[in-house]
């Protein structure tokens, strides 16, 4: 009788060990999947951020160079923000493209000569906390603060002075 009880206990211990092993495996597998998902998400997010940064820099650099003619690039104050403007706005039928930071985004707006500036109407280029254009001599400085609060600067050499500089 006592031998039978010992054998049953041994059998149930063996079963418990098997299920303990299975449980440990399940926990480790879940942790592994969670860790991998986190790593995958951060990798994709980083790649997306760098891609957006590359696109934005290329866009700004090429747009500035394409409009680098007499009074083709200017910086002006619209409300409480500095706006980078490309093209002509003095002529009645002239159009200009405005690039500015608004509501956590860098936006672009095509504006006709007789239209008033409304930052809400701009099309978002990418997310950014702040966008500050500035000019020193013939060097245009574009300061961009990204979603994480990291500030980067983009420099563009101008062959022609900006409207702001030409007016001096």
């Amino acid at each position, binding site marked *: 009788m006592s031998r039978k009880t010992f*054998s049953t206990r041994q*059998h149930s211990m*063996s*079963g418990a*060990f*098997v299920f303990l*092993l*299975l449980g440990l*495996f399940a926990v480790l*597998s879940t942790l*592994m999947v969670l860790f*991998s998902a986190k*790593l*995958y998400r951060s*990798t994709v997010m*980083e*790649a997306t951020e*760098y891609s957006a*940064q*590359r696109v934005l*820099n290329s866009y700004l*650099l090429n747009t500035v160079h394409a409009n680098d003619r007499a009074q083709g690039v200017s910086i002006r104050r619209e409300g409480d923000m500095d706006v980078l403007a490309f093209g002509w706005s003095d002529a009645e039928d002239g159009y200009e493209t405005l690039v500015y930071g608004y509501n956590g985004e860098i936006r672009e707006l095509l504006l006709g000569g007789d239209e008033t500036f409304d930052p809400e109407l701009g099309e978002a280029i990418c997310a950014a906390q702040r966008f500050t254009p500035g000019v020193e*001599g*013939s*060097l245009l400085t574009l300061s961009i603060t990204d979603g994480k609060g990291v500030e*980067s*600067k*983009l*420099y*563009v*050499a*101008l062959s022609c002075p900006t409207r702001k500089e030409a007016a001096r």
Partner: protein
Amino acid sequence: MNRHGNNSNALLVEIMIAVLFFSLCSTVLLDAFIKAHDGSARSAAVTDALIEARNILEQLNAAEEPEALLAANGYAETESEDGSVWQQTGEGEAYRLMVRLESTPTEAGALRTAHVTAWSGASDQPVVRLQSAHYDPAEVE
């Protein structure tokens, strides 16, 4: 009792084989994710190097004294037969930059050329090569 013991052992062996198989799969998965992470870090370094190379090139185009600008940006001049060569001396960067300046005098001024080369990590293969030319007209007397 013997039959019970044999069944339990068979289940244990089966679970052990399953655990081994999934452990191998996890190792492969982890390896793949580490490679993806390394690739992402390399790509980030190349992007940073490209942005920095473009920035220094644009600044050189606008600068009246390119050597002073490079020195102010942490570049150190090194001796070379190919003109003036400047290298970034900053440590801890994921990339390194080299700038070579050339000046070709002409009758009406000088043609200033800047070559910027960037390397990522310890690689000998350049990841970025940019060049720009800027004409400085001579003052008319």
